[in-house]
């Protein structure tokens, strides 16, 4: 709770800071960007609403046990590949993603596999991509970024295998 508050303070502090810089460039600059930002907000709200309000339903029909099952204790690169797919397919927000990672660690999943899972989830969990990234960014960029990101959970798992446990 306090972490969320701290992040909110940092966030609005940054808005205030860059807003002040814009204001010192002159009120027209300030007003133009204020209008620009508000228009972006108004345009984005319906899509965010659809995603946030709808994501609960998507999470409800892909039960966590299915994902945890994919992260079983089978180690090696096949396990890493499965973890990457599981990370991309995980619905819901960070609580679900990290909880699944914790469950997998506790139920005997290999550390490199769990690292691959967490990194894959962070890079291209499908729900965050369609809910947040596509509404805000050019779709061409988003697909390109996701495609380019595919090797990196494997790289992370390889580094984890090299340097060992935490």
């Amino acid at each position, binding site marked *: 709770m306090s*972490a969320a508050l701290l*992040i*909110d303070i*940092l*966030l609005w502090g*940054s*808005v205030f800071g*860059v*807003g002040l810089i*814009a204001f010192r*460039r002159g009120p027209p*600059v300030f007003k133009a*960007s204020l209008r620009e*930002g*508000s228009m*972006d*907000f108004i345009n*984005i*709200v*319906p*899509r*965010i*609403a*659809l995603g946030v*309000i*709808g994501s*609960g*339903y*998507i999470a*409800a*029909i892909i039960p966590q046990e299915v994902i945890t099952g994919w992260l079983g204790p089978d180690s090696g690169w096949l396990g890493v590949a499965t973890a990457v797919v599981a990370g991309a397919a995980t619905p819901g927000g*960070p609580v679900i993603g*990290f909880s699944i*990672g914790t469950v997998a660690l506790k139920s005997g999943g290999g550390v490199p596999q769990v*690292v691959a899972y*967490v*990194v894959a989830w*962070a*890079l291209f969990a499908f729900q*965050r991509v*369609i809910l*947040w*990234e596509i*509404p*805000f*960014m*050019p*779709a061409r*960029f988003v697909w*390109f*970024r996701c495609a*380019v*990101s595919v*090797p*990196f959970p494997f*790289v*992370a798992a390889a580094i*984890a295998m090299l*340097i060992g446990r*935490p």
Partner: protein
Amino acid sequence: MSEPSPNSPAPAEDAESEPRPGRVRTPIGWSTIIIAVLVAVSAGLVWRRDGADGVLDILTHDLSLFGGILPRVLAGCLLGAFISEILPHEKVSRSLGPKSGLMGLLIGTAFGAILPGGPFTAYPVASALLAVGADFGATIAMVVSWTLIGYGRAVAWEIPIMGTDFTLWRIVISLPLPVLAGALGRFVYVRLYPKRDSDEDAA
């Protein structure tokens, strides 16, 4: 020989009057339709399994979540708009553009790591950077850095749930990834879109 390329300085003059490029403005695209279908099918399945109560439970929970997120989305949009207004385009395309090299990827990585907030900040700001002259490579480094080594999600969610040891260890492993992803992105981009790249140089 003595003259520099004649086509570079001129178009920058009227950049002021033109609408900003790169901002998505269409309210309904195909991705929105896909999400809507996905949500409708999922809600239908929940309704068949749990009845109307199950559908309502999820709806009220997600509505309150949505209410909590809205102010942050506004903050993110304002942050993106202010940043795209105050950053000098010429400087951004020099330090984060296609020719910025390793330094551009490092700047993108550092920017992503210190950016406050969640997806409601990272994506509007990344979109603003793209619009003012950053290339795909530097923007990829920024987004990947935000998601993998940014402190926002780590402090709020990962440390409480997965523990400090695992989180710090995972962040250390992730340190080289944003620069590598940005470099790979740049490498692939110039080969996929060689013409577009030279267009951007000329503009």
